């Protein structure tokens, strides 16, 4: 139980995907205009990442390891992730078309999102069991959602602020992202016994 709790906290806070591992920066900057779309994106990533953690773990341990094909894991994982993203895209188009429209190009981009592949590979590298892998996948995605939603909120405020002309737009957003990353660095001090 302690181990699972540790994985959760590490995934969400101390080793936040965006702020400490710098994975998934593309959607982090691209879909963080409004907290609502950011949350939708976060949920989509959470869904894909949790499912892909399960499937990649099973495929890796029951197929690749059995047949000494570990060296092909990247290709296998990308195949799995691509299929899952396709699946979620169909699902969304049918049941949540508004979110589908709002996410636009970023939804297919989850396919090549390093955060999703990163979670799958870290699961394997850390030698997690299936349960731990699911927890890690789900909670690092929740960490991603947390980061992107906070950042979207910050950006919404920035829209109403009047920074110096040269900082307007992307530059001030990047400065804000840097400050957020520094704030998250504060969690590094947490020690979980």
């Amino acid at each position: 139980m302690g181990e699972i709790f540790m994985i959760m906290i590490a995934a969400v806070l101390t080793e936040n995907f965006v702020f400490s591992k710098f994975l998934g920066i593309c959607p982090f900057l691209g879909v963080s205009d409004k907290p609502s779309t950011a949350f939708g994106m976060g949920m989509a990533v959470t869904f894909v990442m949790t499912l892909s953690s399960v499937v990649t773990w099973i495929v890796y341990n029951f197929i690749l390891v059995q047949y000494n094909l570990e060296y092909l894991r990247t290709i296998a994982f990308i195949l799995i992730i691509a299929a899952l993203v396709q699946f979620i895209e169909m699902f969304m188009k049918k049941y949540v078309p508004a979110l589908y429209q709002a996410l636009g190009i970023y939804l297919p981009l989850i396919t090549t999102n390093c955060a999703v592949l990163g979670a799958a590979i870290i699961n394997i590298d850390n030698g997690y069991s299936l349960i731990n892998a699911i927890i890690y996948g789900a909670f690092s995605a929740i960490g991603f959602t947390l980061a992107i939603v906070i950042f979207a909120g910050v950006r919404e405020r920035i829209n109403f602020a009047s920074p110096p002309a040269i900082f307007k737009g992307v530059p001030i957003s990047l400065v804000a992202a840097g400050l957020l990353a520094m704030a998250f660095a504060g969690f590094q001090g947490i020690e979980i016994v």
Partner: protein
Amino acid sequence: MNVVWAIIWFSVLGLGFGLILAYAGKIFAAEQDERIEMIADILPSANCGGCGYAGCTALAEAIVSGDAQTNACPVGGTETGTKIAEVMGEQALDSIRYRAQVMCSGTNDFAREKYEYDGIPDCISANRLAGGSKACPNGCLGLGTCVKNCKFNAIKIINGVAAVDYEQCTACGACVAACPKMIIKFIPFEATHWVGCMSVDKGAVTRKNCTVGCIACRLCEKKCPVGAIKITDFVATIDYEKCTSCGDCEKSCPRRVIWSNVSQKSEGIVRDKQSVGDIDV
């Protein structure tokens, strides 16, 4: 043997996912109104976004769902509108044809430069550097961002100011959205007069920046018999709902910044400025 297993397993994985997706595609297939496809075929397929939707298919969906009018496509004009109305079984709506007009007359001969721009030849970059090289904050930078964005080859830069070829212009709005100075506006295709200036500076400042800027003297406003021209924010604008194309404003303008595509021929006023070469009235 290892290679064989790799081939076998990856084929199995690929096939498995393929089958799952194919099946999911059937389950989640969104039912589509057949009219969407028919309307999408009628639309010009330029995907220019001039209607305000993401592309021609998105507009077709909006028309079928009733969110958009049958004449919503600015590019296709009346002809397309009529065909779409037929598909929808509705009365065809009249659509006003618009054209883009660059609201600046400050060519290199008239507008003062505040510095020499030597950077990336693009209006957006130039605009980031203290608002571009033209002293007037609302002047056309003439670096051709609109030209690059025009999918219909309708814009040219003539002597430092962009000029729209009316016949080519489909009023898709790509240039309007691209212009960092926001000085490209839509006016009705039939409009005969327009104010070729958007300088919101006070008259004295505009006078220093450009020899053909609107100085908000209000002569046109007083002369206009139907009250169609108004000065707001130190610049004249014409209300085309009211304009009768009488041309009094043009004659009264001491700065000669009110443009007409009628008098160019009839009175032979030669002003080496925008658009002139492209008009065929």
